[in-house]
């Protein structure tokens, strides 16, 4: 028996050795793992694009789809009713035309009549109505995004009318994201709805060549209505659960384009020959949630919240936490929004004396103690830096280790203040809806003021006055220290020589059609 085992062992070793030797001399043997974007003459498309992703797709169901980092997956297999270009402008998607009535509460969409899904069915207005209704009744972020919709009606085969309870300036953006994804009717009752997308997008998921949770292969949809946006015959998205694995994939030139997990990986990516493309995305800082003193009375005093803002050495935090990559700020609205004001990036300067003075005025000459959660979002070293800043002004942070139910506890109002990073949406209204509005998950105690409500009412109507109201809201939030932002975090996308990308304002990933071969 041992003899047999020995023979088997030798065969195994020989096989491994042969395999190793066969790989030594040629590049061909690793071709499948190396990225290859060589242009082919046929159809004017490049052969393959390999994308390195840091987030896996959680579901292929359009109804439950998220956006953000998973947008690439969705954009491959689905179309959206509208498209949002890299600079944020809205363009035609499945809808060729769109317009509001004078009251801004009825949106009319005109649909394309040449769109077919991978199951052979065609796009029509009824299908759009069904999709939007399912989104509204679903249990994902889509439901909240479409909360302003009262009814959706098919006027004729290619016309859809969306009636709103109140104007929603962010609706067009939502319809260009996950809330505008349209899946075929056959998917609705399919048992495989979460694993088999039935879309009309530029690419089709090749399930046989894909491994859920690891690698996804897409082939160009030959019947696609917009072939100009198909730049590759095949797209492969490799998901890297580990930051080191992604770095090794970059060092081995296994991907053409990738999002980095953090700016600390930039030097390694550069030395591997990749081009670094950065833009500011999230803002990171403290959400001073308890502005009404529900669980921490001190935070109800605006002077205490302002003191926290003055106590932060934002430049130091940016250098210490992000190695200097990013931009310090004290506002939550992104640079591309109408609400943005450059002056508000430095409204609160680092001034410990001022912080102490404000605390004394508020009746806390001996300082205050605030309890904040310590979670996977906040590494210990980062927490210590922030606590060190605040301690100088007499603000003691009592860190409490968050459990598995961190997000639920957070949104349930367990902590009066906490560190977090929220997206800087491309539109002012979307930022308001995400972080400020009374029904927002991140307005933890769901409270507002008359001033904010009045400004929101003006923002809804858009136009010059809407833009002015957005700026006034921004000023209000900064002056009243609803938040204590540290800086805007830089999102990084790296590309090899064969690939170029146009970054999308306010989005972690670019539009799929904005990734193009350079050759």
């Amino acid at each position, binding site marked *: 028996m041992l003899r047999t085992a020995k023979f088997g062992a*030798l065969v195994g070793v020989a096989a491994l050795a042969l395999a190793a030797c066969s790989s030594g001399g040629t590049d061909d043997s690793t071709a499948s793992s190396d990225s290859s974007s060589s242009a082919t003459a046929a159809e004017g498309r490049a052969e393959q694009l390999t994308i390195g992703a840091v987030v896996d797709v959680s579901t292929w*169901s359009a109804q439950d789809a998220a956006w953000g980092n998973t947008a690439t997956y969705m954009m491959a297999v689905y179309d959206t009713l509208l498209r949002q270009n890299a600079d944020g402008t809205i363009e035609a998607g499945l809808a060729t035309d769109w317009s509001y009535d004078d009251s801004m509460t009825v949106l009319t969409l005109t649909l394309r009549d040449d769109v077919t899904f991978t199951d052979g069915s065609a796009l029509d207005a009824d299908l759009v109505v069904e999709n939007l209704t399912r989104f509204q009744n679903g249990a994902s972020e889509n439901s909240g995004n479409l909360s302003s919709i009262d009814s959706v009606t098919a006027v004729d085969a290619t016309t859809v009318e969306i009636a709103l309870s109140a104007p929603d300036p962010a609706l067009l953006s939502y319809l260009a994201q996950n809330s505008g994804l349209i899946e075929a009717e056959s998917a609705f009752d399919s048992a495989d709805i979460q694993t088999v997308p039935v879309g009309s997008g530029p690419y089709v998921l090749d399930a046989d060549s894909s491994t859920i949770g690891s690698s996804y292969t897409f082939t160009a949809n030959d019947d696609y209505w917009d072939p100009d946006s198909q730049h590759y015959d095949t797209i492969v998205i490799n998901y890297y659960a580990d930051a080191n694995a992604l770095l090794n994939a970059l060092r081995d030139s*296994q991907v053409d384009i990738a999002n980095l997990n953090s700016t600390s990986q930039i030097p390694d990516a550069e030395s591997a020959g990749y081009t670094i493309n950065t833009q500011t995305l999230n803002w990171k800082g403290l959400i001073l949630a308890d502005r009404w003193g529900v669980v921490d009375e001190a935070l109800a005093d605006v002077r205490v919240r302002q003191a926290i803002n003055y106590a932060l050495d934002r430049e130091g935090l940016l250098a210490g936490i992000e190695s200097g990559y990013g931009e310090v700020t004290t506002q939550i609205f992104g640079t591309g929004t109408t609400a943005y004001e450059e002056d508000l990036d430095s409204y609160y300067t680092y001034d410990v004396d001022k912080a102490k003075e404000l605390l004394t005025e508020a009746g806390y000459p001996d300082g205050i103690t605030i309890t904040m959660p310590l979670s996977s979002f906040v590494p210990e070293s980062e927490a210590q830096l922030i606590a060190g800043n605040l301690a100088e002004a007499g603000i003691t942070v009592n860190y409490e280790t968050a459990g598995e139910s961190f997000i639920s506890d957070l949104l349930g109002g367990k902590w009066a203040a906490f560190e977090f990073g929220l997206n800087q949406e491309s539109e002012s209204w979307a930022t308001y809806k995400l972080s400020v509005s009374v029904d927002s998950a991140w307005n933890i105690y769901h409270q507002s003021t008359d001033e904010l409500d009045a400004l929101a009412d003006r923002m809804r109507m858009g136009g010059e006055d809407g833009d002015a109201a957005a700026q006034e809201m921004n000023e209000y939030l900064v002056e009243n220290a609803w938040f204590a932002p540290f800086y805007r975090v830089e999102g990084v996308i790296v590309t090899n020589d064969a690939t170029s990308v146009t970054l999308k304002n306010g989005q972690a990933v670019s539009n799929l059609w904005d990734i193009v071969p350079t050759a």
Partner: protein
Amino acid sequence: MLRFIGRRIVTGVGLIATLATLTFFLLQFGSTDTARRIAGQSATEDAVQVVEERLGLDQPVLVRFWDWVVAALHGDFGLSWFSGQDVLEAVTTRMQVTVTLAVGSVFLTAIIAIVLGAYAATRRGWPDRAVQILSVIGQAIPGFLVALVLVLVFAIQLDWFPATGYTKPSDSVPEWLLSITLPVIALTIGSIGGVAQQVRGSMLDAFERDYVRTLRSRGLAHRSVVYKHVLRNAAGPALSILGLQFVILLGGAVIVETLFSIPGLGPLALSSTSNGDIPVVMGIVVITGVIVIIVNTLVDVAQAWVNPKVRLS
């Protein structure tokens, strides 16, 4: 033999039932955010509630456990709460990858460790000390460090192997071999030491036995004594530790698979545990448990086969 195997199966079923029960109830402590994770951070409380109802999380835990047991007994482990993939399909597909790595590693470990152990036991002196020192070093270096160094040298510097990724054998056997070589070596380096020490110790014990002295006094060649008799007697303990090593490697593969971005059980176990994807975790625990019991039974049978003095009882 059949009675032994039958007893093992009965014990194994009891063990898996206990394991599944403990796992299910332990998971209840850490799964309170699952519905929120699925619905999204910005989803409304109502939306989260809908997800909880859809997953059955609004039911009492005993009801949920009973439902799971009944379905599992019918071979239905349910769907992943996150990917919607059939749990049995997801686990068995990934298990094949992990078992391939573990079997490859055990195979390699056996060959290298037996050679090193036998060499150390027969030569003694400095070769023995060298083997012992190398064994300790091999065991002391963390697996992830070995993996990182292997990638840097053999994938990035020399470009002999892919740094990450996995090719299915059905797509290309040579590329499949290339994709598993570094992970297998990374898993193997840490396990050679223990097995080599075991082989060395067992052989040294055997050398002291009367039958070896008798064989030598009858004029048998040294080579024949060592490889035909001593090694065979030392094989039993080595087989035991190799069986144990296989089980350890199933766990150890988590880090290596993650570092090499290999779609094995490791990354699935990590993501499903941190997400609170209970159906997947339960599927992994039960199926891994079954494999461990099968392997242990096979090791016992193999021991009896190798060494007739060992009787199954």
